[in-house]
């Protein structure tokens, strides 16, 4: 699964993109966030405040309880600030 980061999430995680293979028990967006936070202190810090973290699964907006099983691209980003 490809994981993308945008805006200050990208800066804090320290990368724009990574490929992860989450363990079997990662079913939802919320599960995936918990899993990613174990990858590095930067991940843990960047994804720590879920009030300001948004997610899209295969380019569709997703809620914390939505499934990530079978997804090929999951993105994390701050709330949009418009054009």
């Amino acid at each position, binding site marked *: 699964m490809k994981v*993308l980061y*945008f*805006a*200050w999430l990208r800066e804090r995680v320290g990368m724009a993109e990574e490929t992860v293979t989450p363990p079997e028990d990662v079913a939802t967006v*919320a599960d995936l966030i918990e899993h990613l936070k174990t990858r590095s202190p930067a991940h843990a810090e960047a994804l720590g405040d*879920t*009030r*300001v973290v*948004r997610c*899209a699964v295969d*380019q569709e907006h997703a*809620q*914390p*309880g939505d499934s990530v099983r079978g997804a090929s691209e999951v*993105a994390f*980003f*701050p*709330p*949009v*600030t*418009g*054009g």
Partner: protein
Amino acid sequence: MTVKVQREDFDIGAELDSLTEGRHGVGGLASFVGLVRDIHGGAEVSAMTLEHYPGMTERELERIATEAKERWPLDEVLIVHRYGRLEPGDRIVLCAASSAHRHAALEACAFLIDWLKTKAPFWKLEATGGADKWVDARESDDEAAKRWRETSG
């Protein structure tokens, strides 16, 4: 329906003309151009960088253009949105709607720009007084807090 997400500037006249050329049933064309202001929240802005999510941005813009066509009897809808580094006075976005009826065109144009200025998938990095700062989306933060709380209980 035309949606473009691009780094380059756009030519307002050419973009708008393309909507009405050869179409004799169009009574009116409403449009809005958003520009970079040199002031935001009281602070002087020397430049701004718009980041977006390539692929998803185009999909979201096409979705809102489709919604406008479903809500109003429109002939055409156009959205051109820039990303990258922009300076005060630079054009950011153009949206336009054409229709046989002027009120449909005007209302659809207002609907599009309201969505684009608040909900389009872009993130703003502002350069104010030497420092670069990501712009906060305050209202959304509160909504978000509630949203995440509901599912964690």
